[in-house]
């Protein structure tokens, strides 16, 4: 456990440093961004440089950056004129809501479809598999646009945007969750079907178990193992997909902030987002390891 924690911290440090170095390599310089669209005179530039401490050597800025990170100070956004910590604090909530809802929707859909169709007739499985295939093959933003046009603009069942209330969460969560449901559905069904063919499943049938009990008591846990290993991928897909979903649905959140920061090369915000997503990833993969152990006694050692 200690080793995992150490490795996690190392990954975080590496992520922070990598993004720092990467941004240093970027063309143009920070002063340009701060000048923006406005008038541009040497005096204005000089003032900006002094104000942001851009005249110090890069290594000093880097050390200062790490030092501030250690103290939980994420710096100030160049673009949004505010503390990065404060910006992120307001944005974590909506994104967490969105991604959790999407994950829940994806898992629920996939689970239901997999359990209902595993080992069933050709047509049912074919249809489910086709649906899954399409849902992972349609670009996520297209799913969003279609959902919006149909359920919000035309039918008016769900509000278009904003983070108010559960109703506004339905469409974005679906848009983000459908591709996940597709992948997860495939994995789960494949896992279930493989488990149902195993000798232990035949043995369980030989004890007089019904198919449903067999799925519930034996096969589902086996199907979960490959699904759990994919969860790291899901995290990435959810966080990445949040960028597009939030922009499309006009939702506040980290994705929108990240996109804005990235296009504006708002370094402090970009790095904070990088760091945050690294933390999320490390946390989730640690949790997954634990879940994995709980599900599969063989790797408990």
């Amino acid at each position: 456990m200690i080793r995992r924690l150490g490795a996690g911290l190392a990954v975080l440090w590496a992520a922070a440093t990598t993004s720092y170095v990467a941004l240093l390599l970027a063309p143009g310089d920070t002063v340009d961004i701060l000048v923006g669209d406005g008038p541009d005179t040497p005096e204005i530039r000089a003032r900006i440089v002094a104000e942001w401490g851009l005249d110090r050597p890069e290594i000093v800025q880097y050390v200062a950056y790490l030092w501030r990170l250690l103290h939980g100070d994420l710096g100030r956004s160049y673009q949004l004129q505010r503390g990065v910590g404060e910006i992120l604090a307001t944005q974590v909530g909506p994104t967490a809501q969105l991604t959790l809802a999407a994950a829940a929707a994806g898992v629920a859909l996939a689970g239901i479809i997999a359990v209902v169709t595993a080992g069933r007739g050709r047509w049912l499985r074919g249809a489910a598999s086709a649906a899954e295939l399409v849902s992972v093959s349609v670009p996520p933003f297209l799913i969003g646009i279609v959902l919006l046009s149909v359920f919000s603009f035309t039918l008016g069942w769900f509000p278009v945007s904003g983070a108010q209330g559960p109703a506004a969460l339905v469409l974005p969560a679906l848009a983000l969750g459908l591709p996940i449901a597709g992948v997860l559905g495939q994995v789960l069904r494949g896992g279930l079907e493989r488990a149902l063919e195993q000798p232990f499943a035949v043995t369980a049938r030989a004890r007089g178990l019904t198919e449903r009990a067999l799925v519930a008591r034996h096969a589902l846990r086996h199907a979960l193992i490959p699904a759990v290993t994919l969860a790291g991928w899901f995290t990435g897909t959810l966080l990445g997909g949040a960028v597009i979903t939030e922009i499309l649905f006009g939702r506040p959140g980290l994705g929108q902030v990240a996109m804005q920061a990235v296009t504006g090369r708002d370094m402090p915000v970009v790095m904070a987002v990088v760091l945050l997503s690294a933390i999320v990833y490390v946390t989730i993969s640690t949790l997954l390891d634990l879940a994995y152990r709980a599900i599969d006694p063989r790797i408990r050692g």
Partner: protein
Amino acid sequence: MTTYAAPPSVGTLVGVTDLRVGFDGTEVVRGVSLSVAPGECVAIVGESGSGKSVTARTLLGLAGPRSTVSAAEFRVSGRDALAFGPADWRRLRGRFAGLVLQDALVSLDPLRTVGAEIAEVLAVHGVVPRARRADRVLELLEAVGVPDPAARAGQHPHQLSGGLRQRALIASAIAADPELIIADEPTTALDVTVQAQILRLLAERKAAGTALLLISHDLAVVASIADRILVMKDGLIVEEGPAGDVLGAPAHDYTKSLLAAVPSAASRGTRLTTGAPRTRPVPNPSAQVLAGTGLSRSYGPRRVVDDVSFALHEGETLGVVGESGSGKTTLARLALGLLEPDAGRVSLHQRQWSHLRERARRPLRPRIQLISQNPLDSFDPRHTVGRLVAEPLRLPRAERHAQVLDMLDRVGLPPETAARHPRELSGGQRQRVAIARALGPRPDVLVCDEPVSALDVSIQAQVLDLLADLQSEYGTAMLFISHDLGVVHHVADRVLVMKDGQVVEEGDVRAVFSRPRDPYTRALVASVPRMPARTGPRL
């Protein structure tokens, strides 16, 4: 070819006439009739793929998806099974008949505890009230001879040895007190000593009045316990009768060849396939080709090979027997120079071998070759047979091809085989390819690690004959590893008996197996199932 077709009598537990089972249009069981009466033990023997397991599973309605089942008559527990729906089958499974599946090691859910698996039967059929279930599980584990049942019930299958898993599986099969146990190869993956224990356990159940349908590829295993034996081949029953008759006076040619093919003490010096005598190369005790002295090797804290010494002479066959995990393979890898010993050394032709640098060892490597248990695993899956056999040959391209064809010819494979992939070959053919490849560079020493363990008796007989022929032709020395005492008795001149990494007994094969001195060897020899009197004890 005779087809047994007596209609099942009314008192039978299971009776089926002209049972046919097909998968995707190919019939694999082609008209089997059999019946099991209460308290009776019926055995089905036959080579791999003859349809034994499919027949057994079909008797419980578990032929599987994509299968088509038909029968002239099919009665289970006195009812017409042809009219059964899923629910009818479910009520019978576990309660009326318990099934012990062939793949014992994977027939328990690896994610659940052993106790939970056994309790499941009790729960499904409601045979004992919930509160009593845990106790009943312990009783059952106790009954099948699992030591410390309370601790074992809470463990997962991977924490149990093969023998314990098989016992747990049997416990779950007998949990609801069925009238019939169908046991499909219940001892196949087990060591002889454990096998003997499991056979005793089954015999106890039989004595307690439970009927048994026992399936095995090993005639000796069923000999001790079966009342009636059915011999199956290509989906048909070719011979059927009381155990003594079938084994003592086999009527069908197939049964005869099956019996003859079993290697044993009696078969020494003969060809298994024909029974004709064969010439053995005369070992030359003055020409030592391979020797190990004081070899030790550990993995982590465990000493897997512990102070082992051996010597192998020109033309000699040194057998190594021992149970699973006793360090046989590790010893083979030490001998091959694939593993550095922690202590001791190996010499090849009385020169340093184990402590050479790999670069120095490389030119000598063709002198010592390996045949392993699973040939498929030792073949690069992308290569054709021709390429595989050519790999160890250090010859110009043109000669290489001729040599490959020559070697294939010697192991009895047609030249076309060179263009095929090993996965398209049968198990016996694959092992022939492995032999061709190993003997291509004309090694002085051949290390055979369980070369026939994966093969049917008849195929095993062919491969053993082939090995013997080539050995006498080339005068190759063999380090022959096997868990099968019969096989070692058949092929080896001298034998090492290994236990927990140590050599417990060593000597001339006949001496060691007929008058074992070490208690472990004695137990080992005693555990080997015996055929009835006609041929005497088969060792």
